[in-house]
């Protein structure tokens, strides 16, 4: 896949422009860690080396990212997050098993910002099929920034999650008051079952006297008649 190496090139340029020269020299030397210990260390120590300022990117760089990986945006990322993702995206192991264990180990001992970086890296690391359970586990998190790393401008869920896990993610986004329109793939992954669950949820909210997010109706409208939609919006759920 050439898009992966394109992305690395774009990321390298962006990182170089956003951190001091000596930090870049250090980072560049970490790109092929000899073993998992070196990877763990470089991954953990990243913010001390790169700082944590927000990444500044040009419109042109954003377009290049979109072209290489539709759905991905790094607009609100800090530079340590981008650098960690850059590091993970290039990591290689001798075999799939070692690769899996090494990355999983990072997940299992990750602090909050490390978790954010790890979930942000899901669309870029190898063997996408290996991370389905991990992604579902992340969706069970209640830590806001971790959820956002999975939900916002991250193409991995739309590209990989089976329908139940996808639906769970969207529902969780509603439950935790996330910005639903930041989720990539809402249209392509819309489905009847999700619409049914969301209608149930809307009914429950209505009964409790709570507000209903407009984006909920957006995801439902494809699967009901206009009449039904209008009825529900007015609180009439018996069809």
């Amino acid at each position, binding site marked *: 896949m050439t898009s992966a190496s394109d992305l690395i090139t774009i990321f390298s340029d962006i990182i170089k422009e956003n951190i001091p020269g000596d930090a870049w020299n250090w980072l560049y030397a970490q790109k092929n860690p000899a073993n998992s210990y070196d990877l763990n260390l470089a991954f*953990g120590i990243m913010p*001390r080396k790169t700082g944590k300022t927000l990444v500044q990117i040009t419109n042109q760089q954003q377009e290049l990212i979109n072209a290489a990986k539709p759905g991905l945006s790094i607009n*609100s990322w800090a530079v340590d997050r981008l650098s960690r993702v850059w590091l993970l995206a290039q990591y290689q192991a001798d075999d799939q098993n070692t690769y899996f264990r090494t990355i999983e180990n990072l997940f299992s001992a*990750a*602090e909050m910002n490390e978790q954010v970086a790890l979930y942000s890296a899901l669309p870029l690391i190898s063997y996408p099929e290996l991370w389905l359970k991990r992604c579902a586990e992340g969706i069970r998190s209640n*830590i*806001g*920034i971790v959820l956002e790393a999975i939900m916002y401008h991250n193409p991995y869920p739309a590209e990989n999650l089976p329908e139940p896990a996808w639906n769970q993610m969207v529902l969780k986004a509603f439950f935790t008051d996330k910005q639903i329109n930041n989720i990539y793939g809402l249209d392509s992954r819309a489905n009847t079952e999700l619409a049914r669950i969301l209608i149930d949820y809307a009914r429950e909210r209505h009964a409790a006297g709570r507000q209903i997010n407009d984006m909920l109706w957006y995801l439902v409208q494809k699967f009901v008649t206009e009449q039904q939609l209008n009825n529900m919006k007015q609180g009439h759920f018996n069809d």
Partner: protein
Amino acid sequence: MCCSHHTEERSVPLAQPTEKFDMDLIRGMKFFDPHVHMTSRTTDDYQAMADAGIVALIEPSFWLGQPRTGPDSFKDYYSSLVGWERFRSSQFGIKHYCTIGLNSREANNEPLAEQVMEMLPLFIYKDGVVGIGEIGFDDQTAAEEKYYRLQLELAKESGLPVQIHTPHRDKKRGTQRSMDIAIEHGLDPGMVIVDHNNEETVKEVLERGFWAAFTIYPFTKMGNQRMVEITKQYGPERIMVNSAADWGISDPMAVPKTAALMKLNGISLADIELVTYRNAITAFAQSGQINEADFVSVIDQSAKFEGNSILRGGQQPRIDKSSIIIS
């Protein structure tokens, strides 16, 4: 690791004249509690602490009361200190730091201690880890000494401050021994915070150049009236106050309450600021991990992204506790 597991030693005074804690005394002041086990506390505590002006805290890793039986329990505990608990704290606008270490009690389980030691390098370099702690002596056994020494070496190697728990029993000797061993391993006393001091230990700790932390903890440790006297006698230099609030009867408001009592007793605002805020920051910022700018904006910058309508970084909405209605 604190304090009330020695319930057998404690004699609870039956009734004392009470004076109400007047929040107005400390309004506008900010506090740093450098020792508090939030894992064992409720959201009500977080809210009260934030209201009283606590802007940041340090949660040392400690004994949870229930002994751990395997290394994964330690791993998950350390992970929660840099993960879940940090997040919980951020919801109340309090910046959460931690120290990572093998506590003295569980150092006595040697096969487990070995595995924990192997794990520590994975955690001590993590963001927001401001020291190795709390470590030191409990029963003053050979195993405790062994892992205390190993962790001092780790602190030296990583350039991190050390937070020392001093024992309940045979306290004076245990404190002296902790300092002797730290010196023997070549640690700079300025990098070592000796915790749970009292009138008996403070003089030597300060004279030898260490930081002296005091835990204001009902029944078993310092009361804050005694703390006022100590501050008057020794001045504010290298002295800090903490709550060590945990799963026992303890008070996460100990730092602001002590500040209020100091104010009532004529200690200057500048001195109060040193012992309830500044000194702890100076000591633990030697880790390179404390940035005061983070206190006011604990919320991740990405959460400020345009169009994000939720409470900052997932901050918790306030509920009206005086209402009978829960909605």
